[in-house]
């Protein structure tokens, strides 16, 4: 999913020059990825469609401004994230510009929860992704995260943005991105290990040794 297609540049150039087929090829290449991100951010199919359409329309409007400083995938992810946040803010009745105000309270490492359910998984991720129910399960776990943690995890770990790019996209400090990422990873680990962990190989006992 996160294969960085750095060879997009010639295609982008052709689309910028007005070649419709090149633009359509770019859309086809990224539509599932954008739609999936939108679904995971908004948690709704209809919103995900709106966000996907908005994102590609917006990318089209600003295509001339794309200079290739970041990869096309990263550029598109940022556009899609902003479109998704707009939809969420609207749904919550918040002004769309209040992302920073609404989310930039500083998380601290002190409040990071300790791992509780610790066990090796029964199956490897490679085996798990082939199962139909896995996607539902992992998206349900994702949906349980606070929005601020979910966003950071999606951008950094799923879309493959750097810490810096994630911070810029969400208008957060890098320090805050790092703490939120840790919380997100730990919380997802906890949930998924409860689902996929091998009860027989659960590591028990107090885990507060020196």
């Amino acid at each position, binding site marked *: 999913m996160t294969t960085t297609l750095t060879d997009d540049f010639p295609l982008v150039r052709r689309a910028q020059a007005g070649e419709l087929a090149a633009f359509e090829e770019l859309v086809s290449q990224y539509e*599932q*990825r954008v739609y999936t991100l939108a679904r995971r951010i908004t948690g709704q199919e209809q919103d995900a469609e709106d966000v996907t359409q908005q994102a590609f329309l917006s990318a089209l409007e600003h295509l001339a401004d794309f200079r290739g400083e970041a990869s096309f995938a990263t550029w598109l992810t940022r556009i899609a994230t902003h479109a998704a946040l707009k939809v969420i803010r609207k749904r919550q009745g918040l002004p769309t510009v209040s992302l920073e105000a609404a989310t930039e309270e500083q998380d601290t490492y002190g409040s990071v929860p300790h791992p509780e359910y610790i066990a090796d998984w029964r199956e490897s991720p490679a085996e798990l992704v082939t199962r139909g129910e896995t996607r539902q399960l992992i998206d349900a776990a994702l949906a349980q995260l606070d929005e601020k943690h979910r966003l950071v995890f999606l951008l950094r770990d799923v879309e493959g943005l750097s810490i810096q790019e994630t911070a810029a996209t969400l208008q957060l400090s890098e320090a805050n991105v790092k703490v939120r990422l840790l919380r997100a*990873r730990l919380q997802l680990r906890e949930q998924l290990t409860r689902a996929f*962990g091998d009860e027989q190989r659960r590591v028990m006992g107090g885990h507060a040794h020196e």
Partner: protein
Amino acid sequence: MNCDELLAMLNAYVDGAIDPGVCETFEKHLADCNPCQVVVDNIRQTITLYKDGQPYPLPATFHRQLHAALRQRFKQIHH
């Protein structure tokens, strides 16, 4: 390094962005601490699962609608 300190370093370690000196201490702790070792494995697997998971296909009706809207706008811009 105790487990709490390890927790704070976890991201950097998993991302391979940890200072080599700290990394050594981190791995020394891991070697002696099975729970932490399993937590690190679990986190790596968690990330992999999301990264390599199947994306959602677009509903067919929406797919058509999206491409039609984009074609139309593209032609407006380039003519």
